[in-house]
């Protein structure tokens, strides 16, 4: 080390060494962490007022001062810092550090990996971190077989070497595990590459599609249209609720994809289960009411008469229908998107979203008023009429839209690939090791001396237990052999 002459290094060497050092890695870890903290405090991509208020609270300063601080931070891109040039530069530096560090060390590691294990003189074996010595009765040649078996018993395939001093078996396992770290490092590069591919070749957009509507484009933040290359239609949108509560259980959209006018795909999506077509993925993300659509939706009813005749119809508020096979007529007179009953029994609408849609129907028979009341879509028990007929309120259609994230990201494949590589790499790094073992057998007055030396670059204790198992095998083999 001391002989290394620093003066003689060229500038290129110096830069190389700088990028190959673990010290730089630690500096970059710290830099990314510290700046990231700021990004979690300041709200990213938010309206300026929000962060100005936050700064006033944080530092206890006046609005004037907060605005100046905000301007300074904003000019340093802290309000959208994860996409700023300097943060991306940090990430790229991180990548460069990894690449150069790996290139720098890989040849040496490869040499160790490819190096075949060789027989060693016993003085070396004596000094190993795992060292055991036992004596067995019998000649060295008699012990030979049991040593071979015992080594195989703990999973090693030994080679043999004999010279005038005696017999030696030696074996190794898991040389390749030394590459686990490099696999881990490689995976980070693959993930970074995936992220970059996503930025350059992908898009993030959204699409609000009313029930029944079709679209061939999605929209980006500033309203720019992104052509999809196919058409997508929302057939229906529904919210499922947990029994008798207004707590949503699932948001579901039924979608149909058309390519060149032909139907090619039908799927219902929920949160966590998107639709994917030609590399573009549609995620359920929000929903809402189409503006000014209140009351204009189509009511889908299924009428079932006492004697089992049934018919399905589409109706609107104000329209009438007749239950098949009877003279009972119903007229839909009112609609509520979210109906509830107060303590005195009066009904009222408590929300604008379609939390609990209900229709009010007045029934008549031969122009005589029979009865009237609310039918609730989510409560089938309200569908049974007092005279034994039934009117099922199936849907109120055409007034809701489904809100979807629309994304294309060809980089995701690489990100996932990187994740798999990383898992494998970490497993190898932390749960496997390069193990080597040498066993010397010498003869001394009718006893065979067995000297065992072993090393592992990781998890030494676990390997030591293996070696003890080997000794156990040897001892029982000897006893059994007698």
């Amino acid at each position, binding site marked *: 080390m001391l002989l290394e002459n620093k003066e003689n290094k060229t500038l290129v060497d110096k830069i190389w060494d700088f990028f190959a050092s*673990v*010290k730089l*890695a*630690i500096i970059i*870890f*710290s830099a*990314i*962490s510290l700046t*990231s*903290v700021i*990004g*979690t*405090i300041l709200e*990213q991509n938010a309206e300026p007022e929000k962060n100005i208020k936050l700064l006033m609270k944080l530092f206890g300063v006046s609005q004037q001062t907060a605005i100046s601080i905000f301007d300074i931070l904003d000019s340093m891109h802290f309000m959208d810092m*994860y996409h700023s040039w300097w943060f991306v530069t940090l990430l790229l530096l991180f990548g460069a550090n990894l690449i150069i560090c790996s290139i720098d060390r890989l040849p040496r590691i490869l040499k160790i990996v490819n190096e075949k294990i060789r027989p060693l003189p016993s003085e070396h074996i004596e000094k190993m971190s795992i060292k055991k010595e036992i004596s067995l009765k019998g000649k060295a040649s008699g012990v030979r077989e049991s040593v071979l078996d015992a080594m195989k018993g703990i999973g090693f395939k030994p080679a043999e070497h004999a010279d005038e001093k005696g017999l030696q078996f030696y074996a190794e396992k898991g040389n390749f595990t030394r590459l686990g770290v490099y696999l881990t490092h490689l995976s980070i590069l693959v993930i970074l590459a995936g*992220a970059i591919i996503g930025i350059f070749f992908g898009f*993030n957009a959204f699409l609000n599609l009313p029930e029944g509507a079709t679209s061939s484009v999605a929209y980006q933040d500033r309203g720019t249209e992104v052509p999809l290359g196919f058409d997508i239609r929302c057939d229906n949108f529904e919210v499922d609720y*947990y*029994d008798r*509560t207004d*707590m*949503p*259980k*699932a*948001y579901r959209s039924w979608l149909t994809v058309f390519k060149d006018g032909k139907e090619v795909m039908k799927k219902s999506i*929920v*949160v*966590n*289960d*998107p639709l994917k077509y030609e590399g573009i*993925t549609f*995620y*359920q*993300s929000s929903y809402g009411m189409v503006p000014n659509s209140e009351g204009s939706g189509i009511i889908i009813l299924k009428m079932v008469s006492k004697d089992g005749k049934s018919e399905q119809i589409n109706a609107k508020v104000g329209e009438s229908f007749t239950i098949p096979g009877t003279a009972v007529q119903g007229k839909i007179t009112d609609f509520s998107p979210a109906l509830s009953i107060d303590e005195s029994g009066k009904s009222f609408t408590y929300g604008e979203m379609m939390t609990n849609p209900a229709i009010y129907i007045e029934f008549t028979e031969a122009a005589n008023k029979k009865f009237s009341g609310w039918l609730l879509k989510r409560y089938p028990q309200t569908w049974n009429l007092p005279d034994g007929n039934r009117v099922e309120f199936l849907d109120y259609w055409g007034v809701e839209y489904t809100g979807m*994230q*629309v*994304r294309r990201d060809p980089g*995701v494949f690489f*990100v*996932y690939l990187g*994740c798999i590589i*990383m*898992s494998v790499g*970490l*497993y190898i*790094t*932390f*749960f496997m090791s390069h193990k080597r073992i040498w066993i010397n057998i010498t003869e001394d007055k009718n006893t065979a001396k067995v000297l065992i030396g072993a090393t592992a670059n990781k998890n030494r204790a676990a390997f030591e237990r293996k070696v003890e198992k080997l000794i156990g095998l040897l001892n029982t083999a000897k006893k059994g052999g007698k």
Partner: protein
Amino acid sequence: MDSSVFFGLSTIAYILAMIAYITYLAFRKTQIGIIATTITVAGFVTQTLALGMRWKEFYDIGQMGWLRAAPLTNLYESLVFFVWCLILTYLIIEFRYKNRSFGAFITPVAGLALAFIDISGMSKNIQPLVPALQSNWLLAHVLMSFIAYALFAVSFSTGLMYLMLRTEKITESGYIFWTLILSAVVITLGAMGLDYLTFKVLVKTPEELIKGFLFKASFRSDSVAVALLSWGIAIGLTFLIWRYGVIFKKILTAFNITPELLDELTYKSIAIGFPVFTLGGLIFGAIWADQAWGKYWTWDPKETWSLITWFFYAFYLHSRLMRGWKGRKVAAVAVLGFLAVLFTYLGVNLLLSGLHSYGAQ
């Protein structure tokens, strides 16, 4: 009987175990040690039962199948699960290393974490899952994150003990570092205990507690005298721990706890925790986000803090490889890493907001 009775029993068991382990440390009688272990095992079994029962209760209510009913859906359940992992890890260490003395350091963390649930008054109600949380990836994500957190908690304790053993003078930076960290832990927990006693009736949700009431009984009291007194006591306590911290070293030495053992335990728990956290915490989290929101990474505060935590432990693993960084500095990184875990886990939910904030209810 429902699961909460059993959860209560296990909390009591862990607090009793804590007392037993500390008594064991003080008197070094094997019988006391056996009692301590027995109580801990009993508490662990009770808690396991409680977890199973809560799972069943959620299954009955949730109408979503067994997997989706895993009791890991909110802050309360995750904290309980964290304690379960911690005690399991501890019991494994106790049996593997045949050393009971760590019990006195781990059981207080378990007892206090469970007590924190009451202190913060967080909701224990079983609530059906909102659609975004209905994902098996999320389940694996939460499960593995908490296993990793428990392992990191162990490395925090052993790292701190390592520093206790490896510092000599009360003026050296390593000594000041660990006494300050220990004081901060003791003072924070003490102050929250006071909040609990004073505000139990008023407090309804964790947000409300942290934003409104945290330290109101002490440092942030409306009465200037109480606030000043609290600061005084805090400073005094810190001074005492700093002045007499050497006692800890004596206790540890008396129990044959060597720095080498502590270093190994710290490394081992991080060497297992790091891959588990990488796979469960980061990768499964990203897969879940990808399926639920359509983006595998959004830099929202929870994600970013997980990444910061990950960098801390990568820092730890690499600093061991640098010349001149063996020993104390590395242990300090392990200790700081757990502070990042704490912030990721509690701080982000309680102090910052983001995509994940609905998970805090």
